[in-house]
């Protein structure tokens, strides 16, 4: 329980401090000293910090031990169900004497709902809802299963994203996290089409990317990906996440028509250039792009402005380069993830549902029957919902009586 409270407390930190941001972002909010403490404790990524994982493991272990200990107790108790003596039964909160009624006949009435646990000389113990006592174990086990699934995902899974313009093909994704590392997809992904539907009010209603999965130069799968409707291929899941538009620069380089996006490198003989930065408005001259190039091995940059003749056409390294047009091209932002823990987590979810049902909606009741000189002593006990059981017990006693007349 203490461990669980600690986890709750630790999670609070995680929500208060922004997670997984860059050091600059933290330094903008906190002082340098505070940031050093934050990063030392791993609070900028609290849910992956070693101490947090250790805490969860500790919790899992204590859960295992508690559950096993209680399970052992239960098994012992089950074997040890005995019929107490008359003095103890008559002290129970719910008890009644029934006259003129045999033990066998009463058992016959009760076994419609109850199960005989023990027959013992002149009496018997009946029970109902034994399953409910195992609800706790089901819940605890399923929490362990979910945690195991979570760890599997943490160890063997990844998350990242791919942005694709219409017609573009990529076979690598950018991993999310602090370092923007890349990782091969294992196949090529081509965006065939992308469209956004709007509500009459102008808000986006739906965005859909039509993508193709290409393996060994062959299209193996084509699917429309929408929000809430991802694509799943060989364990990799691809989600519609965002969309936007990026400028495309239409150049004429030495007589060749070329379309370049930002940071796309163009190489031809001695000329190496790259559109480095797009500006929608440069003073009053309209849109322009800063082009970086190598001037005899030395990096240089020059502005191309669409609306200024003198700057639209320039000669770089002896090659005539002219900017014909700048167009906005839509792109789709796809989230890519692989998580082998998911089936396990789903199993855990199904189990926990069962456990919750069993634990909270079934309850355990026990009836003791003992033949005594005055007749038959009936006593009952319930672990939960005692008020309800009291009513049930009273009805039951009436019913047993009723069969007499």
């Amino acid at each position, binding site marked *: *329980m203490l461990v*669980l*409270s600690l*986890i*709750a407390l630790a*999670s*609070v930190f*995680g*929500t*208060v401090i922004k*997670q997984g941001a860059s050091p600059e972002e933290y330094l903008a909010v906190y002082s340098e000293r505070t940031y050093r403490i934050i990063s030392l404790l791993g609070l900028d990524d609290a*849910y992956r910090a070693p101490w947090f994982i250790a805490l969860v493991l500790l919790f899992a272990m204590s859960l295992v031990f508690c559950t096993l200990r209680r399970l052992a107790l239960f098994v012992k108790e089950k074997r040890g169900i005995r019929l107490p003596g008359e003095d103890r039964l008559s002290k129970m909160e719910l008890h009644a004497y029934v006259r003129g009624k045999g033990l066998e006949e009463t058992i016959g009435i009760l076994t419609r709902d109850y199960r005989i646990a023990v027959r013992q000389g002149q009496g018997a113990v009946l029970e109902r809802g034994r399953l409910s006592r195992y609800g706790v174990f089901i819940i605890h086990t399923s929490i362990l299963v979910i945690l195991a699934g*979570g760890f599997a995902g943490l160890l063997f899974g990844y*998350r990242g994203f791919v942005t694709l313009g219409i017609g573009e093909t990529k076979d690598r994704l950018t991993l999310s996290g602090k370092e923007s590392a890349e990782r091969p997809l294992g196949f090529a992904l081509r965006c065939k089409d992308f469209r956004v539907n709007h*509500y*009459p*009010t102008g*808000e*986006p*209603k*739906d*965005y859909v990317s039509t993508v193709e999965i290409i393996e060994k130069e062959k299209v193996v799968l084509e699917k429309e990906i*929408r*929000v*809430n*409707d*991802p694509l799943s291929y060989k364990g990799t*899941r691809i*989600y*519609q*996440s965002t969309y936007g538009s990026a400028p495309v620069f239409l150049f004429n380089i030495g007589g060749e028509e070329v379309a370049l996006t930002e940071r796309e490198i163009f190489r031809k003989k001695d000329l190496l250039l790259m559109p480095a930065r797009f500006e929608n408005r440069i003073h009053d001259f309209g849109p322009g792009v800063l082009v970086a190039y190598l001037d005899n091995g030395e990096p240089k940059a020059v502005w191309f402005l669409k609306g200024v003749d003198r700057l639209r056409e320039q000669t770089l390294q002896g090659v005539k380069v002219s900017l014909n047009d700048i167009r906005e091209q839509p792109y789709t932002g796809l*989230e*890519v*993830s692989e*998580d082998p823990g*998911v089936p396990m*987590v*789903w199993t855990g*979810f199904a189990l*926990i*549902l069962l456990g*919750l*049902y069993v634990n*909270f*909606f079934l309850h355990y009741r026990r009836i003791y029957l003992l033949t005594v000189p005055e007749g038959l002593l009936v006593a009952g006990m319930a672990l939960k919902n005692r*008020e309800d059981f009291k009513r049930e017990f009273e009805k039951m006693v009436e019913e047993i009586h009723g069969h007499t007349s």
Partner: protein
Amino acid sequence: MAIHHKILGVATLLYLLVFFLHVLYLSVKKERILSVTWITIYGTFCIHTLGLVLRWIESYRMDMGHVPLANFYESLIFFAWSITLVLIIMRRRIPYPVITMCASASSLFLMGYASLSPSVERNIQPLIPALQSNWLHIHVITCFVAYAAFVISFVCGVLYFVGWEGIVPSKETLDDINYRSVTIGFPMLSLGILTGAVWAHYAWGSYWSWDPKETWSLITWIIYALFLHARLVRGWRERRIALISIIGFVSVVFTYFGVNIILSGLHSYAI
């Protein structure tokens, strides 16, 4: 003003009436007033439901049909509705007017806040793509039924520390009702978190992203799990249990309101 706004306005006034009827009953203690109160509660619930249904129909007429569970206003209205629903379900178990009074007062507060606060957008808004899923219904419904049950638990927890002679039921009874409402709320919250996780898997690409709302719902879940364990394993009762239920509800309120206002995250677009 659209018809559903008017109907929901009437429901708000009826909640006010329910509140006054309770006050009247508690001061004069005539059984007839109590039965009138309950009839009014049922009537209010019907009107409230009608308001929700009309809003639903209206959204289809506006060509963006979706259940009225999609923005903050709709969630407030639905929260109030869930509280009344839980009251009706638990009616037999809580024949104590002071509890129903506090619970319907919270409905009144939510309805009033929803219709009066200038920061709440009351019009039907189109459903953004991430919310267009069948998981929306079950996720939101289970979460709010859980919240509503926790409202009852909180009311019992607070009443435990209030010593109004003759009005507040005995401490054992409060403790029992408190526990019962948590046994409704806890499985519902679990279900809400699970459905949310499954939905997140389809919409955001991961069943758990440690988004502030998710994390806070987990914190709430842990607090109520502690509540149950403290009671069932350690045998805690009454005073300490009442305290936990108050802490738990603070966490619920933070999960619902606080996260939206203070922290940003994936849930920020809605509830």
